[in-house]
C-alpha cells in the first residue's frame, strides 16, 4: 500500500526542484538530538491536517497524499490539487496528519469497493449522478456524507468499525511508515495521529488524537472510530488507557470546533447525561490536556454573548455561531453557547473543581488549520482554503456558499486563515514536543508566529523582566502550570510578546482572568497589561483601552507597523486577588489591524467584496492558562 501512496505524489515530487528544506542548519546532523535544559525555543506546527485519506477531503477533490503534506509542511513547493503552486513562507517544525478514523480511506480501498457503494437507497443513486456531474455536485455529495454522519443515516457498511478494520489497518500502517521516514529529530517532527470524528445530531465532538510514539508502538492499535458508541468520548479514553498500559506509549486527544457543538463539547454532564464525577474529571483532564481553539472553521476562544465586556470576543465567530456543524440541530440557542467556547469551559472547570473536586476542563490552548487540502496554510496572503474546492486559484471562493452539510448561510469568507500551534520544547523531537503539549506549555495563534512567554509566581520583582525567561523558570511556573500557596499575596506574572517579523506589530497584551466567586459562580475579567504607544493611549472611564489606529490600505493590502510595538514586556500583579478563590489566568496578544484573506483575493482577481465580508481583523495569540488553587 505504501507504494500506492507514494505513487500519488510522484508527479509532485518530480516537479519539486531547487528546494532547500534540509541542510540549512550547518550544525544540524544525525538523529541524536540534544535537549536544552529548559525550553529555549518555540516550535511551530499544525496538529490538524487532512489528506486524501480522509473520506471527506477526498470527496472535496483532494488528491494530495500524506507524503506531499509532509513535504509541504517542511517547506517544499508542491502543486495543489487544483493546480496552483503552493509553498509556505516559512517551514513548520512539526506536523500531525490527522485523517478521519471514521470511514478512514472509505473511498480509497479497492477491496472494500462494493461495500462502499452501500449507502442506503435514499441518496445512493443521486450520489452517482452528482459525482459524475460536476465539482459542485461532488461537493454536495460530501456535504451529504457529513450530514448523513451527523444524522446517523449512513449505513453500517460505511461507518462500522469492523467493516473498516482491514482498509484502516493498511492505511494506518502506511501512515506509520511515511511518518517515521519524514520524522527527523532536530529538524522536523512528524507525529502519528488521526481524528476521532463523532457528531451526534450534528454536534461536533471531534478530537485530534496524537501519539508520542512511532509506528512500532502506534500500529499495534488501529485509529479508534466513533461509530460503535455514537461518540461517547469516555470510550476513546478507555481505548487510550488500554494502549498506554499495553505498550508503555503515550497518547493525547485534542477537542476542536467546540464552536459548532451546540454546547456539547464542554457540557456540565457526561455524554450519557449523568453528572460529572471526580473520576470522569480526572480522566478527561489527563487525556485531553490541550484544546484546539482556533482553526479555519472559526475561533472558539470566546463569544460576545458570554463575554459582553470583551470588545474582541467576536473574532472568528461570524457564521459559525448560527448552528452546529451540519446545522441539523436547529439554530444554536444562546444558552448553548456556554458549552461551546473555551473561556467559558475554563470557568466551568473551576466550578466543577469546587463541586466534584477535580477539573475536567483544565486544558491548554493551541491553534491548527484543519485544512482538508493536505496543505497546512494559515497565512492570510497564502491561504489555500478549507478544502480543494476553495483553493487559492478559485476566484469567487470568498463568496461561495459553504453549505458543508448545512442548508443555510455559511460562506467562503467565514473561513479563517487560522491557526498554528506553538510549543515551548527542549528540542524539536516527538518526545519533547509531545511532553510540552502534555504539560500545556503551548499556545495558539491565528496564523502569525509571535513569540509569547508567560510565567506566574509569587516572588517576581520589578527587575525580573530583564532576564525574563531564566527568572520565569527559576522563580515561577510557565504557561500551563499550577500555582498554589503564596501566603495570601496576589500572584505576579512575567509576560513578553514579540511580533512575528514577517507579520504585523502588536497592539496590546491582555490577561484574561477567570475565578469562582463566593456563591460558587464563575466570573471573568480582562486586564490590558501592556500596549503600544503607551504615552498616548490610555484606559478610559469604561475600563477600555483606546483602540489602536487602523492603518490598513485595502487597495494595496498594506498596513503601517509603526502604530504597533515590536515587543511588549511587563510584570503584572493581579489587583483583585482573593486567595480563597480558584482562578486561572491566560494571555491574549493582539496584533494591529491587518487585512483578511478575502482582501488579498480581491486584489489578485480584481473583485469587489460585498459590505458584510470582514476585511480587517486583529490576529492574535492565546496562551495556555496558569491556574491558581487555594492551599488545602
Amino acid at each position, binding site marked *: 500500500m505504501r*507504494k500506492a501512496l507514494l505513487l500519488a505524489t510522484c508527479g509532485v515530487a518530480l516537479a519539486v526542484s531547487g528546494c532547500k528544506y534540509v541542510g*540549512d542548519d550547518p550544525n544540524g546532523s544525525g538523529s541524536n538530538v540534544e535537549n536544552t535544559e529548559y525550553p529555549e525555543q518555540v516550535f511551530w506546527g499544525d496538529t490538524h491536517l487532512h489528506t486524501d485519506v480522509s473520506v471527506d477531503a477526498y470527496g472535496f477533490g483532494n488528491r494530495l497524499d500524506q507524503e506531499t503534506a509532509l513535504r509541504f509542511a517542511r517547506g517544499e513547493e508542491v502543486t495543489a490539487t487544483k493546480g496552483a503552486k503552493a509553498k509556505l513562507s516559512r*517551514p513548520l517544525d512539526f506536523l500531525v496528519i490527522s485523517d478521519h478514523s471514521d470511514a478512514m480511506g472509505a473511498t480509497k480501498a479497492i477491496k472494500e469497493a*462494493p461495500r462502499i*457503494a452501500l449507502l442506503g437507497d435514499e441518496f445512493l443513486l443521486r450520489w452517482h449522478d452528482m459525482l459524475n456531474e460536476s465539482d459542485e455536485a461532488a461537493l454536495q455529495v460530501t456535504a451529504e456524507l457529513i450530514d448523513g454522519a451527523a444524522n446517523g443515516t449512513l449505513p453500517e*457498511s460505511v461507518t462500522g468499525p469492523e467493516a473498516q478494520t482491514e482498509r484502516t489497518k493498511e492505511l494506518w500502517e502506511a501512515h506509520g511508515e511515511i511518518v517515521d521516514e519524514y520524522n527527523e529529530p532536530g529538524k522536523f517532527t512528524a507525529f502519528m495521529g488521526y481524528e476521532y470524528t463523532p457528531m451526534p445530531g450534528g454536534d461536533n465532538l471531534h478530537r485530534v488524537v496524537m501519539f508520542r510514539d512511532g509506528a512500532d508502538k502506534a500500529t499495534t492499535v*488501529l485509529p479508534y472510530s466513533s461509530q460503535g458508541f455514537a461518540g461517547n468520548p469516555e470510550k476513546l479514553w478507555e481505548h487510550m488507557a488500554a494502549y498506554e498500559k499495553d505498550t508503555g506509549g503515550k497518547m493525547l486527544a485534542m477537542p476542536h470546533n467546540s464552536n459548532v457543538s451546540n454546547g456539547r463539547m464542554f457540557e456540565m454532564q457526561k455524554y450519557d447525561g449523568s453528572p460529572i464525577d471526580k473520576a470522569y474529571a480526572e480522566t478527561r483532564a489527563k487525556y485531553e490536556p490541550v484544546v484546539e481553539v482556533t482553526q479555519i472553521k472559526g475561533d472558539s476562544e470566546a463569544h460576545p454573548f458570554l463575554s459582553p465586556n470583551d470588545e474582541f470576543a467576536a473574532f472568528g465567530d461570524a457564521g459559525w455561531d448560527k448552528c452546529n456543524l451540519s446545522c441539523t440541530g436547529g439554530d444554536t440557542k444562546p444558552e448553548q453557547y456556554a458549552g461551546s467556547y473555551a473561556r467559558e469551559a475554563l470557568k466551568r472547570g473551576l466550578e466543577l473543581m469546587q463541586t466534584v473536586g477535580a477539573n475536567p476542563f483544565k486544558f491548554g490552548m493551541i491553534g491548527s488549520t484543519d485544512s482538508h487540502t493536505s496543505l497546512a496554510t494559515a497565512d492570510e496572503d497564502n491561504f489555500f482554503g478549507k478544502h480543494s474546492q476553495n483553493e487559492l486559484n478559485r476566484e469567487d471562493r470568498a463568496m461561495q456558499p459553504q453549505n458543508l452539510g448545512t442548508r443555510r448561510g455559511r460562506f467562503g469568507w467565514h473561513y479563517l486563515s487560522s491557526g498554528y500551534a506553538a510549543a515551548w520544547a527542549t528540542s524539536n523531537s516527538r518526545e519533547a514536543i509531545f511532553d510540552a503539549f502534555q504539560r500545556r506549555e503551548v499556545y495558539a495563534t491565528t496564523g502569525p508566529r509571535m513569540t509569547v512567554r508567560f510565567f506566574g509566581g509569587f516572588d517576581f520583582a520589578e527587575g525580573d523582566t530583564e532576564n525574563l525567561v531564566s527568572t520565569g523558570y527559576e522563580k515561577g511556573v510557565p504557561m500551563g502550570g499550577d500555582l498554589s500557596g503564596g501566603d495570601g499575596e496576589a500572584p505576579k506574572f512575567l509576560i513578553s510578546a514579540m511580533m512575528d517579523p514577517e507579520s504585523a506589530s502588536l497592539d496590546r497584551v491582555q490577561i484574561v482572568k477567570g475565578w469562582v466567586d463566593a456563591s460558587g459562580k464563575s466570573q471573568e475579567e480582562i486586564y490590558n497589561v501592556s500596549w503600544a504607544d503607551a504615552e498616548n493611549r490610555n484606559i478610559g472611564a469604561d475600563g477600555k483601552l483606546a483602540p489602536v489606529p487602523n492603518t490598513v490600505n485595502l487597495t494595496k493590502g498594506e498596513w503601517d507597523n*509603526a502604530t504597533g510595538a*515590536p515587543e511588549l514586556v511587563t510584570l503584572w500583579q493581579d489587583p483583585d486577588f482573593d486567595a480563597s478563590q480558584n482562578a486561572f489566568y491566560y494571555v491574549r496578544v493582539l496584533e494591529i489591524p491587518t487585512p483578511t484573506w478575502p482582501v488579498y483575493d480581491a486584489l489578485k482577481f480584481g473583485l469587489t467584496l460585498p459590505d458584510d465580508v470582514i476585511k480587517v481583523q486583529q490576529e492574535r495569540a492565546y496562551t495556555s492558562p496558569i491556574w491558581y488553587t487555594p492551599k488545602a
Partner: protein
Amino acid sequence: MAETSWLKRLLKEPLVHFLGGALLVFAFFWATGTNRDPTDYTINIDRSDIERLQANWTQNFRRPPSAEELNGLVDQEITEEIYYREALRLGLDRGDPVIRRRLFTKMRFLGNQEVNDPTNAELQKWMEGNPGKYALSSAYDLQQVYLGQIGAMAETDIAAAAEQLNNGSAKPANLSEPISLPLALKAAGTQAIARQFGERFVQALAPLKTGKWVGPIPSGFGQHLVKVDKRIPGKPAALEDVRQAVTNDWRAAQTADQEKKSLDNLRSQYEIRVAGRE
C-alpha cells in the same frame, strides 16, 4: 501450428504476466472481501468470523468483548453482509466513479515493484545529481544593534551611531533599544537568522562587507546596525547529514519512474483517438 505460436508468444509477453497477476490479485481481494457467496441467501457467521470480531475488539480495548458486546458485533456484521449482497444484486458497484477511481489506484499499485533500500552509492549519486537541493546554506558570525522601528531614528543619528561603534567609543549593548534579540550570533545559518529576524534581514546581509558596523539594515522589527564578523560560505552536504531526505527523494523518484514505465507499457497496447487531436 500458427495458433500455438501465437499463444506461446502471448504467454511470453510480460504484459500478459502482469495482467494475469493483476487478475489474480484482484480475484483474491474480491474473494476475501467476504468469504461468502454474494448470490446466496444464507448467511453463516462461522467460528473464524467471530474470532475476527473478537480480535478486532480486543485490539481496540485490550480486553475481549462481553457476551452482550459480542452479540452487537455479530448483528452489525449480519446487517453489513445483507446490505453488501443486496447492493451487488442491484449492481450498485458498477458505474461508480469512486470505485472506478479505486481501480485506477490499484492498477497503479500493481504496476510497481517494491523499491529496494538504496545503497550508499546510489544515494551518493542521487545527492550529487541534485547539488542545489542538499547544499548547506551559508552562515554568519555577526553582531547587531536594534535601532527601533523604521523612522524612529534620524539617518544622521544612525550614521553617528555606526561611527561610534566602529571607532570603539560606544558598546553595542548601550546603543541597542530593548528587544529580546541576541546582540551576537555565532555560525548562524540563514534559515535560523530568518526565523529570528525575518527574511528581509537575511537578504540584506549578503552584500555586506565584513568587519565593519553598517546600517540601517531592515528587519521585521525595524532597523539595525550590523557588523558581519565572518561569512561562512555554503557547501555541499555530506550524505550523513541529509541521508533521510535523500532517501525519501530517491525513493519517490524510483516509484515515479516505475509508474511511468508501467503506464507506457500499457498505453502502447492501445490505439487512442481523441477528437481534434492529431
